[in-house]
């Protein structure tokens, strides 16, 4: 199974996978959205604007996660030079970019009623904006450089460089005074978010990750077909 993922065999096994994954994703998202927008209670200080979180947090998570994967794939790619690794990283980039944009936009919409400003140059917000620029740089290096193996090297370099920003984003709220609040969910201590809001958040995270996964599989398939066609020529 895993071996097939890194070869053209992926093309033949993907169709059934898409159907099943999409079905799970859709049911999770429908349940999640109804739970988040209707069933879950408003927050005692934020009121209904807390509901922005159910999109904001999963988007940020996927935005960071995709770049983390791109970083890892870039390292392996520079060492082992396996074409499939670079195709996977390439397919992840646009997804991560879109979710980073969604994260920044929804955060901004939440910031206005909560903090009183749309934007603040605090460490969390600024480092997230830098992540957005790294995504753009990564995608552009594939688009601009025509020589594939050169593009691969430059893009991988951007991917590795950008990964250094990820721990800064994650821990910025702990290391420095920021306007953005620290994480409510951590590995080490109990969540500071009431379970009636935590459950829809987890459902939304799962649903949106599956959505990103389905889009990723589609894009990866497209890249594989492109590669196959270019080899035939």
């Amino acid at each position: 199974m895993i071996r097939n993922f890194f070869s053209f065999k992926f093309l033949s096994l993907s169709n059934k996978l898409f159907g099943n994954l999409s079905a799970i994703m859709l049911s999770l998202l429908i349940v999640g959205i109804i739970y988040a927008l209707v069933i879950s209670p408003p927050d005692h200080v934020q009121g209904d604007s807390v509901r922005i979180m159910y999109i904001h947090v999963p988007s940020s998570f996927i935005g960071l996660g995709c770049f983390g994967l791109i970083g890892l794939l870039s390292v392996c790619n520079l060492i082992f030079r396996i074409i499939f690794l670079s195709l996977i990283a390439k397919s992840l980039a646009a997804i991560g970019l879109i979710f980073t944009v969604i994260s920044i936009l929804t955060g901004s919409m939440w910031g206005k009623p909560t903090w009183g400003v749309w934007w603040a140059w605090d460490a969390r917000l600024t480092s997230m904006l830098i992540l957005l620029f790294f995504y753009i740089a990564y995608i552009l290096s594939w688009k601009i450089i025509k020589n594939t193996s050169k593009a691969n090297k430059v893009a991988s370099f951007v991917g590795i460089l950008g990964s250094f920003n990820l721990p800064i984003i994650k821990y910025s709220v702990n290391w420095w005074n920021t306007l953005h609040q620290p994480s409510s969910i951590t590995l080490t201590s109990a969540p500071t978010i009431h379970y009636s809001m935590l459950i829809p958040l987890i459902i939304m995270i799962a649903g949106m990750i599956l959505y990103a996964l389905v889009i990723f599989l589609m894009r990866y398939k497209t890249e594989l077909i492109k590669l196959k066609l270019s080899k035939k020529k």
Partner: protein
Amino acid sequence: MIGRRVKSRILILLISLLILSIVTFTVFKSLEKNVVYFLSPTEIKQNEDIDFEKKIRIGGLVKENSVVKNQNTIKFIVTDNKNEIVVSYVGLLPNLFSEGKGVVAEGKLRDKKYFIAHTILAKHDENYMPPEVIKTLND
């Protein structure tokens, strides 16, 4: 097995990663002053070279029962439970501004104990609770 070329690539990559992390670390260490969004009252007190002409941000909690509204001027105390600064402000407060909650004020220090703000931002904490739960907790 791992070939010689792969081995040399791993070595080059490891060295460059090490150098990169040292560079990032030193850059952020030297930029630390600019990275912090606001200073706490204790940091203001300990800071030897404060430029009173420069716009800065201070932050902390709004002290309970400290908010006084006098015509247009609003005065309150920002505390970090060790030191305090009096803040005076003319203008509209954000909806989430309240006593006991986090706040960030933008403006200038008149002296180390008195701050004249031109913008007030409410800081939200990491606690998310429905109103009914807060009510039962308080009862």
